[in-house]
């Protein structure tokens, strides 16, 4: 008797709860009803690795976002005649693709109006589907894999040059400035590394450079003696590596052990202070790497931003804080033009952005990529990375030809076989 009663009670309770939740689910849409309060709150998501080995870079991005939001609030932004208060929702994706989708869903559930993130291409790509489904615009401050904006989503943007631009820029730099004729290409078999190396190789070939070897390693290996020995036999002028510093460091060190005299160049994944530590000063000297964007000191708004950042957080800008800052400003700019904080209304305006940010002029092409993003080549000098040359990529066309011939991975077989006969 009692038992039955209790069951009924629990059942009723549960049903009521479910009903209550159900009622809560479709919340009143964006407060556009006249009785809405004067100040509306708009949440902006920030997603980047806040723990783990890449935390310093992820926190840097979040700090950039926070700074932008504080500046916007201080400026008393009005959108569509209403005062807006912005609020940051920062999430940690641990640089992990799986965690990134969880974080994305969390941000969508928190009803953010827009997202700045993620840091890693591997995280931005799976997360972008979730934002796209929810109709929430996303600007990645740093993801450079071309695929990120090639999925046909209307919500994906980025404020850095992508690898389709970085690879060819490296190749042109190698051909023109370094005068390299023969080059060996190594990648780490990741989306980032292989993409960069493929794009480099395609442009290098079109510029008449000879690819004497195309080698692959993994992003966990530390022994490259065997492939470097093979490359040594082909005597290239230059070795290009698509990958990140834990591999690039030991690789350069082992090159020196083997007495390889070729120059070494890579992408932004190895342009870190850690690379120099891993390779050792002597081996790192003269190694070159590119980074999308201007050197932070040379950004149009750079000096003021760096100082503001230093005062606020009592540390130096790592890398992508200015991009995170600008991403927020691009959102707010689009909201202002649309006169609404509703993603559905201001999303079309993002594509029409023409904004002068900290990093320079920001405008997007039809895919959501940054138009004419500059790329800077750095060189290790006296144990430090120094800016060597800033290159404007020859815009979308070069990138298109490069990505078009992406399956070139197996192509170097012919010259390789030829060289082996010697």
């Amino acid at each position, binding site marked *: 008797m009692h038992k039955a009663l209790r069951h009924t009670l629990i059942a009723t309770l549960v049903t009521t709860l479910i009903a209550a939740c159900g009622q809560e689910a479709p919340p009143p849409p964006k407060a556009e009803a006249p009785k809405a309060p004067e100040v509306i709150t708009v949440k902006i998501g920030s997603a980047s690795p806040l723990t783990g080995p890449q935390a310093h870079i992820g926190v840097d991005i979040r700090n950039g976002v926070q700074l932008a939001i504080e500046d916007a609030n201080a400026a008393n932004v009005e959108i569509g005649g209403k005062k807006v208060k912005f609020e940051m929702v920062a999430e940690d994706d641990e640089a992990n693709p799986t965690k990134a989708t969880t974080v994305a869903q969390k941000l969508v559930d928190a009803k953010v109006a827009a997202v700045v993130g993620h840091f890693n291409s591997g995280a931005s790509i799976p997360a972008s589907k979730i934002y796209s489904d929810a109709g929430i615009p996303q600007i990645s401050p740093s993801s450079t894999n071309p695929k990120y904006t090639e999925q046909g989503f209307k919500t994906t943007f980025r404020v850095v040059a992508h690898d389709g631009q970085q690879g060819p820029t490296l190749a042109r730099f190698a051909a023109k400035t370094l005068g390299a004729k023969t080059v060996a290409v190594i990648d780490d078999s990741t989306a980032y590394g292989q993409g960069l190396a493929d794009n480099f190789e395609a442009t290098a070939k079109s510029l008449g450079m000879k690819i004497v070897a195309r080698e692959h390693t993994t992003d966990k290996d530390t022994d490259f003696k065997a492939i470097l020995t093979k490359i040594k036999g082909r005597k290239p002028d230059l070795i290009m590596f698509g990958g990140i510093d834990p591999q690039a460091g030991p690789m350069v060190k082992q090159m020196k*052990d083997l007495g390889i005299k070729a120059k070494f160049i890579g992408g932004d994944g190895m342009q870190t202070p850690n690379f120099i530590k891993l390779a050792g000063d002597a081996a790192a000297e003269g190694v070159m790497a590119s980074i999308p964007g201007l050197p932070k000191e040379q950004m149009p708004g750079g000096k003021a931003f760096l100082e503001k950042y230093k005062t606020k957080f009592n540390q130096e800008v790592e890398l992508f804080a200015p991009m995170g800052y600008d991403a927020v400003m691009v959102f707010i700019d689009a909201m202002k033009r649309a006169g609404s904080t509703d993603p559905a209304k201001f999303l079309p305006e993002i594509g029409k952005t023409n904004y002068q940010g900290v990093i320079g002029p920001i405008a997007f092409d039809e895919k959501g990529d940054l138009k004419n993003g500059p790329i800077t080549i750095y060189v290790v000098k006296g144990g430090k990375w120094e800016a060597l040359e800033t290159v404007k990529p020859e815009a979308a066309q070069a990138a298109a030809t490069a990505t078009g011939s992406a399956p070139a991975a197996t192509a170097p077989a012919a010259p390789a076989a030829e060289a082996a006969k010697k």
Partner: protein
Amino acid sequence: MEIFTQQLINGLVLGSIYALVALGYTMVYGILGLINFAHGDITMIGALVALTVVQALAAAGVPAPLVLVLAGGCAILVCSLLGLSIERVAYRPLRRAPRLAPLITAIGVSILLQYSAALIWGKQYIALPKLIEPAAINIGGAQMTTLQLAIFVLACAIMAVLLWFIKASRMGRAMRATEQNPDVAGLMGVNTNAVIAFTFVLGSAIGAVAGLMVVLYYGIGHYFMGFMLGLKAFTAAVLGGIGNVGGAVMGGLLLGIIESMASGYIGDLTGGVLGSNYRDIFAFLVLVLVLVIKPSGLMGQAGGDRA
């Protein structure tokens, strides 16, 4: 030809490190019939301890040879204690348990060591500070550094001493007796518990030296570095005939050469279809082939499986 020589040198140096780690696997297997999967991670701990000591001392301006000796000494000490306590806590209570139990425990210990290291040292790659600047030696057109030579010579010396030790010393005889039959050895007055504990300490100490070598050779350390190294060394031990000390040495050197040659030439042999990122396939292909064709390994006695 000089490329071939170079790959051979690469393979021998890599192989001598594999061989040192393989010794730890094979000695424990010989005596207990247990595959100590935590051994690779003991090597990792040795490597990271050595790295930490070098980091601390190099900054203080201690001369390089002294730093190396101290780093090696600390690594050996920590690993020996670690090997001793793992045997006492994790394996000894299971000595009479079904064979699967200690194997699962070994995997558990391996994971415990990995994540303890991740907690202590973090998950990022740790760089070796500048310590020695090895000179290059030219051998028939191929280039070798003094460091590589030192690693190879030291590894060979350790292996030779170990072989002599097992063959000629009193403790070595006790080890061989325990290997043949622990119960009878016990009846003959051999303290088998002490012999087994000693074997763990010896294997771990050699592993610590291998860890120091890896750190010096690659200049990098990582909490997960013991996993692959352990698997490769285990393969080397199986290739040589697990339980056979001479076999571990041979298996290690052979595996190093196979790997080096394979990653150097696989691209050309397969017309570019398979790249050098597939080199790990070869190590494990060797493992599968040995297990299928000659499970006792190159130097193992057929049917020698006792435990």
